[in-house]
């Protein structure tokens, strides 16, 4: 125990020391370069300078005065001469540069961000998504503004997320980013988890178990029964009960009517411990 405490102390000491050492500042503003752009793009430059990303920070920084519009857009001299978009690096859908070339500008500074360690392996990079598709270099907040950013490309998600049963994404209480690592992972669907079930368990802790009686399809894959992006059936189910249950379990067992076993939640009226049971009657998931 003493050794463990000692090691912990050394780790903390190292981290603190490294933190104090690494008090580097961002680049300061190269005012001359900025003023050059402001001649024609005053509104954009003002917005940039007022925005936290990057203008506000650079304008405060005491670092080397190397930060300017040209840090991202490249040398603007030719552009000032010919007034062509193609003479300068631009970002977004209307850019004349490829997504890869646009992203190189961002990665010049951000490539060492821990979150981007697997960018080259991710689906977004491999599908030519540019950083500017989601991030604004001029605005006050560089982070994407809610799910609408994702809906721009994942068009059908907007409709899915507003079905009767959905995670509170459009309400702003859960973000796409809570489940997906958009900057690249080795997982299927870029999910943040060793597997889908473990991802779900982070919020649905009561479903973790271990249970005395496990429901095998539940343990293998939550998405066998649930559609996490939205469903018109209660609890994000892929089909309404009892039809979903009947895809595996046969046997007449009641009737869809007010007094029958299929009223309301149907099979779940009795088999309520469908995620796993700890009762003596666990095999039937009724306890």
């Amino acid at each position, binding site marked *: 125990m003493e050794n463990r405490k000692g090691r912990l102390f050394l780790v903390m000491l190292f981290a603190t020391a490294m933190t104090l050492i690494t008090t580097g500042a961002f680049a300061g503003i190269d005012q001359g370069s900025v003023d050059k752009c402001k001649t024609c793009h005053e509104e954009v430059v003002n917005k940039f300078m007022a925005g936290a990303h990057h203008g506000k920070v650079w304008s405060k920084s005491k670092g080397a005065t190397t930060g300017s519009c040209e840090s991202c857009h490249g040398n603007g001299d030719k552009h000032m001469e010919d007034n062509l978009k193609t003479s300068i690096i631009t970002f977004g859908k209307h850019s004349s540069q490829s997504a890869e070339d646009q992203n190189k500008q961002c990665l010049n500074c951000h490539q060492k961000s821990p979150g981007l360690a697997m960018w080259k392996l991710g689906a977004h990079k491999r599908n030519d998504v540019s950083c500017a598709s989601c991030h604004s270099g001029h605005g006050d907040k560089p982070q994407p503004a809610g799910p609408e950013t994702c809906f721009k490309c994942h068009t059908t998600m907007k409709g899915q997320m507003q079905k009767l049963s959905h995670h509170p994404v459009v309400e702003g209480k859960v973000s796409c980013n809570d489940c997906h690592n958009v900057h690249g992972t080795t997982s299927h669907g870029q999910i943040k988890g060793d597997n889908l079930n473990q991802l779900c368990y982070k919020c649905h802790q009561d479903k973790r178990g271990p249970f005395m009686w496990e429901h095998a399809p539940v343990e293998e894959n939550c998405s066998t029964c649930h559609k996490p992006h939205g469903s018109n059936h209660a609890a994000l189910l892929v089909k309404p009960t009892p039809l979903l249950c009947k895809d595996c379990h046969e046997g007449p067992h009641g009737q869809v009517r007010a007094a029958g076993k299929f009223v309301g939640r149907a099979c779940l009226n009795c088999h309520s411990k469908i995620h796993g049971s700890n009762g*003596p*009657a666990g095999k039937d998931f009724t306890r």
Partner: protein
Amino acid sequence: MTKSKALIFASALLCIGGSAQAYTLGNWDLSGSIMLEGQVVSGDNEDHAQFNKFTDIKDGVTGGFSLSGYNADYGMELRASDIGRDTQEFRLSGGRFESFGYELFYNEIINNRALFDGAVKGPWDGAGTATLTPVPGIDLSAANTTGEGFKPFDFSINRKIFGGSLDLLKGSPFFAKIGYNRENQEGLRALGMAPTFSTSSTIFEMPEPIDYVTDNVNASVGYRSDAMAVSLEGFFSSFNNNNEKLIWTPANTDARNASGLKDTTLLAQDGDFWNLNFRDTIYDLPLDSTFTAKLGYSRITSKFDVLNSANTPDLLHSAGTTSAAAVNYATISTVVTDVPAFDGKIDYASADFALASQPTDNLDTKLFYGYLNKKNKSNQVTYSGFPTVTLRPGVTGSYNATSGIFSYFKHHAGADAQYKLPADTKFGVGYDFLHVNRTEGRPTNPENTDHKATLSLSNNSLDWLTSRIRYSYLARLADYRDEEGFLFFDAAEKRMNTLAVEFEAMPLEGLDAGLSASYSYAKYLDSVAGELAGRLNDHDLIVGANLGYQFGDAMHLGIYGELDRYTSETEIHAPSEFAYNYYIVGTNLTMPIIRNIIDFRAGYQYQRGRGNAEGEEYDNAAGSSSGPLYKDGVLVTANTPGLAGAINYLDTYTRHTASAQVSYKVLENLAAKLGYTFSQLDYLDDRIAGYSYNNTNPDSAVWTQSGATLDWDYKAHVAFIGAEYTF
């Protein structure tokens, strides 16, 4: 607060004003805002959970604020929203540039699940606690369609999460992050339960108390350079349920309940979850390659005393039932287990490797392999001592139950390549292999192997148009064991074709359009021995489109829509088909009335979903008595044994949502808004046709519902007025 007071209070905000300016404190530049909003809500069932599913819109005032500050070295930001509501959130973040960062937060997430207006109720005292007793004098021997004498409660769960994180060593090759949060969940949800001593199909829908506390800790350390990135991440979560048992006295008047015997239901048990991940990524390998490896290990544990005569001698508990229809009772004094406690332990081990390369400017490739092993190391518990019963027709015996655990491992491997062709065209080809081996707990479906091939083509040759098309074919092979006589659909052999297309277009300045569509067709195959798969065919068509037009630099009109049609055919009982059609259309408009002073925005959205099933309605076994049959919400006949008919309405609904808002810039730093939102849901489902809180039909001796699924209709009008002061 009354509606009129709320309006007056919110209106008074408009009188606030002045010549406030950005604020400087020392070398800090501060800016921020204060927002207040008054809301008035009216309508029919306007406090319905379906209207306020994840929101807390109600009469009264709420607000928020923000404050951000920067100096040469430090930055900070404080934000608060929905103050005083069940959705309130506070977040403070900041740090020293290129050095460290921190975040502290408090967040509430409400999940309203059923009616609030007293229509959710039950014959119980003690809702919200771990002990339920019948309301004194309640009589469930007669039908009680309105729940007369029942006590109301709400099915709603509120999560309150607070915590923080610290990000160290920013700006150095090293990084370290540590975070902690605590999540409290409180509320009620519906729990269906049959009492131990039911002679038939007595069922109660009861309020399950939710009182969870989960502590989560995460930490990561690592190093990143141009050549490599390496990190070690850890996560630990401890889950605690303050109500691990629900002890309840059934509310029916069954003869065996005359003495007020109790029953016990085990709820979610305390447990821990921890996870370790090691990642290593190496850049700039030959052929412009990047290689990554991830090794993960997780453990989930839960240990508790099992219900048996030694641990709970004063309580009753359900025996195992399996196929025995009338063996639902056994006093716990007769039930024994071979071990006193369940020691639950599940280990997950995973390994993932991926190599992305760009051997030429035109070729982009990726190889990957993943392994996952879930091993359930829990002890198994065997129950015995149940009464001798008819286990199934012609078979009599004593039911003994041994707990069931499930283990499996997966191999997942694949490769894909994308090649750039002339004219900004990219061609892709890929192959995925997935093998699942269920080593314990699923003997009828021990193995599946998936082969999936993918082709894709994208083109960006026109400045104004990007198009993609993608096709995939999946062949799932299965190893069956034939004892069960039918196949579980998730492990059945199947073939699936999926075709997806996407277009993004900007044909005119200011005009933005997108269209995406996907269609998948899955065919499930019978086994060689002739067992039927749970499903026959699935068809899923999804089409989404959006169109936006920017008029100049001020006015924007957007239109969007989506169609989702799903059909699923099955044949376990008889040929049948479930179909669900859903579409959503909407439009939104933002425009200035007086440029930079008065803005107007409005939106309208319409959703419609319709579910129905052919040949799905069926009855108890021929010869048994049954109750009334409803079609389209109308009573058709009182007794229809053996029918295979249709269910015409499943989760069928329409929802209209409209909103309009005017924003007025009163002063340079003061803005006001006035708005209105309307929402209406009309819901129809045969499963709640003729709904009764208490039935006493022949095949359901006492059938008590709580209203959890009843009557989702609502109509809500919301008027709001607000002000925002910025500095």
